[in-house]
Every structure is written in structure tokens, then in C-alpha cells.
């Protein structure tokens, strides 16, 4: 899973799609996930990072993570896999 190349992410969680001109805002956790995806970290690594560092149960995170990835896909921000 990778964020598209034409997308810039700022430190403050501001995301800009240079193809469409759309901009987006991320909250802290969203920003952290996008950052890790940009660093080519695996899903597994993201999950472990959150479970180790955040006060969250595995099931809840799993749900939220899948939902978040869906959102990124719907917004056309992810590289097409394969």
C-alpha cells in the first residue's frame, strides 16, 4: 500500500493532491499512518506501532485502520496495487 507520488503531505497533516488540486486534512493518527505508508512500512508494522504506542485495542484499531484505508482509496490517494 502506497500513497500516490503526486501527493504532498505537510508536517501539520495537510495533504495536497497536485493532480486534482484537492486538499485534505488529517488528524494525528491519520497523519502517522500516512507517514508510515510513505516510508514504505508494511501494514503489519503500522499495526504493531499503534498497538505498542497508543491506548487502543487490537480489534478497534483493525476496524479503524481498514476504514481509513478505504477512505484513502475512495479519495483516490493510493497507488493502484498490482
Amino acid at each position, binding site marked *: 500500500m502506497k500513497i500516490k507520488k503526486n501527493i504532498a503531505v505537510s508536517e501539520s497533516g495537510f495533504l495536497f493532491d497536485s493532480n486534482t488540486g484537492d486538499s*485534505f486534512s488529517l*488528524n494525528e493518527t491519520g497523519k502517522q499512518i500516512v507517514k508510515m505508508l510513505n516510508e514504505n512500512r508494511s501494514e503489519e508494522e503500522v499495526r504493531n506501532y499503534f498497538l505498542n504506542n497508543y491506548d487502543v485495542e487490537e480489534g478497534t484499531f483493525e476496524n479503524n485502520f481498514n476504514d481509513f484505508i478505504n477512505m484513502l482509496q475512495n479519495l483516490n490517494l493510493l497507488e493502484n496495487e498490482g
Partner: protein
Amino acid sequence: MATKEKLKYERPVINKINAGVTDKFGMSTKMEIIEEIDSVKITDLLNEYGSPVFAVSENTIRKTINELKQSFTTRYPKVQIAWSYKTNYLNAICKIYHSEGSWAEVVSMFEYEKAISNGVSAKKIIFNGPDKSKADLEKAINNGSYIHIDHFDELYDIIAISKTSKERPKVAIRVNMDTGIYPQWDRFGFNYENGEAWNALNRIMLSEKLDLVGLHTHIGTYILTPSAYGVAASKLSELAVKLDKKYNHKIKYIDMGGGFASKNTLKGAYLPGKDTCPTFDQYAEAITNAIINSEIDPQNMPTLFLETGRALIDDAGYIAGTVLANKRLASGRRSMIVDTGVNMLFTSFWYEHEIYPAQEVSSHTEDTTIYGPLCMNIDIIRSAINFPLLNKGDNYVLKRVGAYNMTQWMQFITLRPNIILIDTKGKTHVIRENETNETMTALEKIPEHLK
């Protein structure tokens, strides 16, 4: 045990930024947080009394009724408030109003007897409504309560009773009228414009068996235009003047009913209720000006009665509860399921109830639909609200739920929760216990063949 302090988790979100577009109210969406009610922590309330829980602030009740009194008594010499029982008839709540000097306004024998058992003198009960049986009327007449007549059939019942009863019935009529507002309530009482009200007053006077003590109206509820009350007060004053002219009879009071708006936001309203709701001063100005400027003899000014309901108690009531789940709908919308359903929040059919997180949240929000826990499609608390990202297990507070919910709620699918009073010292008291399975089955009976 983990040694490292973990970071507070919030579910990850991404929101598209629509430059220049504000929300419907054109205001910032910065969310207020309610962590306590009258210095009582929401988390403590929920831990002690379960989730969800109704909490009523005694402080707010007393403060609000004194604001209402202040607005009217500074403008008019004789003012009497009668607590409208149907708005919230929990005994503890009624007793607070009575301790502030309120009479009782009731619309059924059930409410009438509740008022008596709350220690209200029968002579300080106003008996309104279209449903009074002959037995109810006899009782109210013998006790010396004020009876507000709704229709001619009731008037004839009272005249019939008066022929044999020892006590003279003390009566008023309820008048409905055009005050310039829509909808005009014409199903209760006698109409002003078509002469029905004057006709009823003449019949009462000619019967010579009834004491005509007052004139009553209740022009509607959640009335946003104080001037409508001015019109109504003028019309009642007009009737008072006609009675004085024709019969040399002076009525003792004019009762303006209830109907002042609370600060809740009506569904479909463009601006939030807290910005559009008139003040007590505005209502008081309209009503008292109309009476004072009428032709009523200044030596015999009638007492002004008020039966204010929702505007007195809405702000004192809260529901605190817990998020059950978050869910993405097929349409892509975020939905949040909470443990307060429309079964205990009847007013969610009229209002966009204010809901707030009960703990720290980040400034991120998402367009959310908030559902109650019932397995019913109509169970929607807010259909669209920009709401912070609460997690399962987080707490929320619903504001301004003091009126009608604790009387119109229904036991449906699940049991009703505790109602807590927070007294003026910040101490909490259960004023209605949560229901149990036993409460619900106590009245049921099983026929022999099904045992």
C-alpha cells in the same frame, strides 16, 4: 503491566477541505466539551449510576424560575406561576417548583392526584384539558380547585353538578384565537373571533351557580414571536372589560398558559435556538404591556398566571451516555451508535439536540449520523452533525432535555435508566430508579392455559 504511558488514541480520519464553505450556521465547528454538570464529573455519574443516565440540575431549575419571576414581577404587580405537570412530573422536580411558590397546572386526574400527594393545596391547582369526567369535576369542585373549561359539554356537566354541590365551582374558560401565528391552535377551548368564547362566558354568568374567576389561553408551544402573546393578552383583556361592562363582574386572573420557546433548535431551523429564542423579558414586555394598556380598571388588575413548561426546565436536563460503536455506512457516511435512543429522547422528533463529547477530543471532526441503540430505523438522534471522533466507550452529553422526555418517554426494546438530581450543593440523588425486568412484568398476567 505496561510501563510506558500510552498515547491517547483517536481513530484516523481524513477530511477533504472545501475552501470557503462553512457549515449551515456559518460558524466555526469548534466543539465545546462537557466534562461536568454543576461540578459533578460525567465519568463519576456514569460509574455510579450506569449508562445512559438522566441528570437534572436543581441549580438551573431554581435559577431559571427566578429569572422568569424577575422578568414579570418587575413589570406587573401580581404574578403567579403554575408548574405545568406534563412537562416533567417527577415528584422531586415538582417539589422544587412548589418550593419556589409555583401552583400546579394539571390536565388529568392522574396529574391532579400527583399534585395533591406532592402537598399542593387543592385550592392552588389549575385543572386544564379536554378530559375531565363527571367524577373528576365533582372532586375538583368540592376541593375548590380552579377548573378551566374546554368545551360546552364540560360547561353543562359543571352546571349540572353545581345544582346539587355545596361548593360553588370556580371556573375559567380556555380561549383559542388568531394571534397571527401559524398554526393556530383551535382544538382546545372556545374561539374568540367567532363569538364562541363570549357566548360561553354569558352562559356561565347567567347560570348564577358558577364563580367565573379567570380567563385562560395557551396559544401553542415553542412560540418564537412575543408579539403573539401581546395579541392574546389584549383579546383576553377585551373579554374581561366586556364582562365588567355587562355584568359589573371583575375576573380575578388572566392565565397566559405556556409556550415560551426554549433554547433548543427546531428541526429545519436555520439558526441555533440559543440565538433565536426570545428572552423572558421580551415575552413579559409583550404580555404586561397589553394588559396594562387595556381598558381593565386599574383598581382591579387581574393576577397574571403563567403555565410555562419547556422554557423553565429544558436547560436543567441532561443525558450522559456512552458510544457503542462507529460504523461506515454503504454511502461512505460515518455513523456513530450511542446508548440513548428515541425511546428516552422523545423530543428528538422536534429538535436537533445538542450533543457534546464528555472528554478531551482533537479539533478534527467528521460529518456524522448519530443513531440510538434501538433496532429501529427511526432511531436517529442527529441525522447530520459535524462531530469529533469519539471511540467506542467514550462518553457524550446531550443538553437541554429536561422538558417532556421524562414524561413522554416509552419503555420500548430496553429499560429506562436512572434519573439523578444534582442538588444545589453538588450532591447527587436518584429521583427515579432504573427499571428492571421485574418492573416491566409486575403488571403482566399469564392466563391459566399458558402457564
